[in-house]
């Protein structure tokens, strides 16, 4: 029996040690989140007198509704909405422009094709963090401070997505384009009716990765949104701490941290297969 070739897999004590090690790892991963969750269910005085309890209290509803409806500088519900607009905007924007340009690069011979390809390639080397001051000036000159456009557009250009779709289009059999051409189909017809449906899984996998990328942005929203009502949730948490020596409103801040984690974590767990696929492919 296949199960019997256990000479490599340990039995007995070794087997349990393996589980023990993994459980230890899982606990290390979970502990900070568990504490944040507990802190979001107790009252401020319970936290102010350390040690705080290690089991949840009964104030979950109060803390979360206070965070969502009034927050500290702005209602967290609004920050969640801003984050959703930003994350979806970046993911959809990147995918849309990359699909179009990859289609052009693969299926046409046009002057400047190679130059264009190299221009995109270079953007791989320029993360926002490196060019923040001048990029901020550009956005300010366009009047994009405190706007969704300013949150989204500068992060939309993406070499990774273009390369991914280019690679995928290369594997699409030539016969399909041939047949479309023989039938007299316009290029865009071919793109919409054949290429897009074939790219569905790739698009979905990339969407998962880009949604998380957009949701978790910190530095750029920190610069571009000075108005609390435009804050995204991930950058807004830090703004909830008092600047002086006052004690922070920990239960509300921790409720906000939990709320900030829920959407991307749900995406990762709910779409685990697509997520892993997207991760592995976008790094190739």
């Amino acid at each position: 029996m296949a199960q019997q070739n256990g000479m490599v897999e340990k039995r007995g004590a070794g087997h349990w040690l393996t589980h023990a090690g993994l459980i230890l790892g899982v606990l290390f991963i979970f502990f900070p989140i568990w504490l944040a969750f507990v802190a979001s269910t107790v009252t401020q005085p319970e936290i102010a007198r350390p040690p705080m309890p290690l089991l949840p209290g009964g104030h979950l509803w109060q803390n979360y509704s206070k965070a969502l409806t009034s927050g500290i500088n702005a209602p967290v519900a609004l920050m969640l909405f801003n984050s959703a607009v930003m994350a979806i905007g970046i993911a959809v924007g990147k995918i849309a422009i990359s699909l179009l340009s990859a289609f052009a690069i693969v299926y046409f011979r046009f002057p400047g094709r190679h130059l264009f390809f190299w221009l995109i390639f270079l953007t791989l080397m320029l993360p926002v963090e490196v060019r923040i001051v001048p990029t901020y000036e550009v956005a300010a000159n366009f009047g994009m401070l405190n706007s969704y456009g300013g949150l989204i557009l500068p992060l939309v250009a993406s070499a990774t997505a273009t390369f991914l779709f280019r690679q995928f289009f290369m594997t699409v059999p030539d016969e399909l384009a041939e047949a479309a051409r023989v039938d007299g189909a316009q290029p865009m017809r071919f793109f919409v009716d054949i290429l897009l449906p074939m790219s569905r899984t790739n698009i979905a996998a990339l969407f998962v990765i880009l949604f998380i990328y957009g949701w978790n942005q910190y530095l750029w929203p920190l610069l571009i949104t000075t108005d609390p009502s435009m804050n995204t949730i991930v950058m807004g948490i830090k703004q909830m701490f008092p600047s002086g020596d006052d004690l922070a409103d920990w239960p509300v801040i921790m409720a906000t941290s939990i709320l900030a984690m829920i959407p991307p974590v749900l995406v990762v767990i709910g779409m685990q297969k697509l997520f892993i696929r997207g991760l592995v492919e976008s790094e190739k």
Partner: protein
Amino acid sequence: MEKRVTFKGVWLPLLLVLPQLVITAVFFFYPAGQAVWQSLFIPDPFGLSMQWVGLGNFEYLLSDPYYRASFVTTAVFSVLVTVVSMGVALVLAVLADRLIKGSGAYRTLLIWPYAVAPAVAGVLWMFMFNTRVGVVTWYLGQLGYDWNHVLNGTEAMGLVVVASAWGRISYNFLFFLAGLQAIPRSVIEAAAIDGARFWTRFRTIVWPLLSPTTFFLLVVNIIYAFFETFGVIHTITAGGPQQSTTILVYKVYADGFVGQDLGSSAAQSVILLVVVSILTIVQFKFVERRVHY
């Protein structure tokens, strides 16, 4: 690689690449050019005019002890983050790979911190080690250890390293586990028949076969530590105490936006640009290797 079958037309493809071209030009090339240009000037104290200084900003930077210290800080920080997150991930991946059943369940439990933003991870760890209310701080206090990362630079560095590595374990775990599972069972079993114990098998077979994954992760993690940990630093230490956690990316922000020293910040951007280019080229070389392996 070229497609054999293509469509005719010149205007349509140009129209198709236009959106990406415009966004790239406006938000990538123009600002990057600006950074290079600004790095050659210093603004006068009133910000009314710019004075050409050539490479003066660079000379000043490289002789500035704070900037050099920031280089060292960045190196220490990236190496520690990479080693800690890859080390823990490798151990967990090796353990999960030993299981016949249930490795999928552990994978689900271990991968989701990937979705937690570095800035949120920063807030979580800052809460645990908070000097006034932190749980870990309190228990350390009971044991007689007085934790204070607000005053102690070493403790501050330790905290930002652990907070940065924590969220990164998932990513490394996923790639290590995939790498381990790609190693043919027959090779390992052959060694086991020859009497090689676990540690010998790991050292002589598994580790060498895993090396492409390890190299790849090494480069990717260093890039992560350099550029994507801004949120952790900003939420936990804001670069302090006494700049002991001011990594290069944080310094670009602190000098450019907080200190309003545009010339110096631009020169730092250019230096970072060179660093990230080198890292990207190295990454591509390794990825190339990995494909041909």
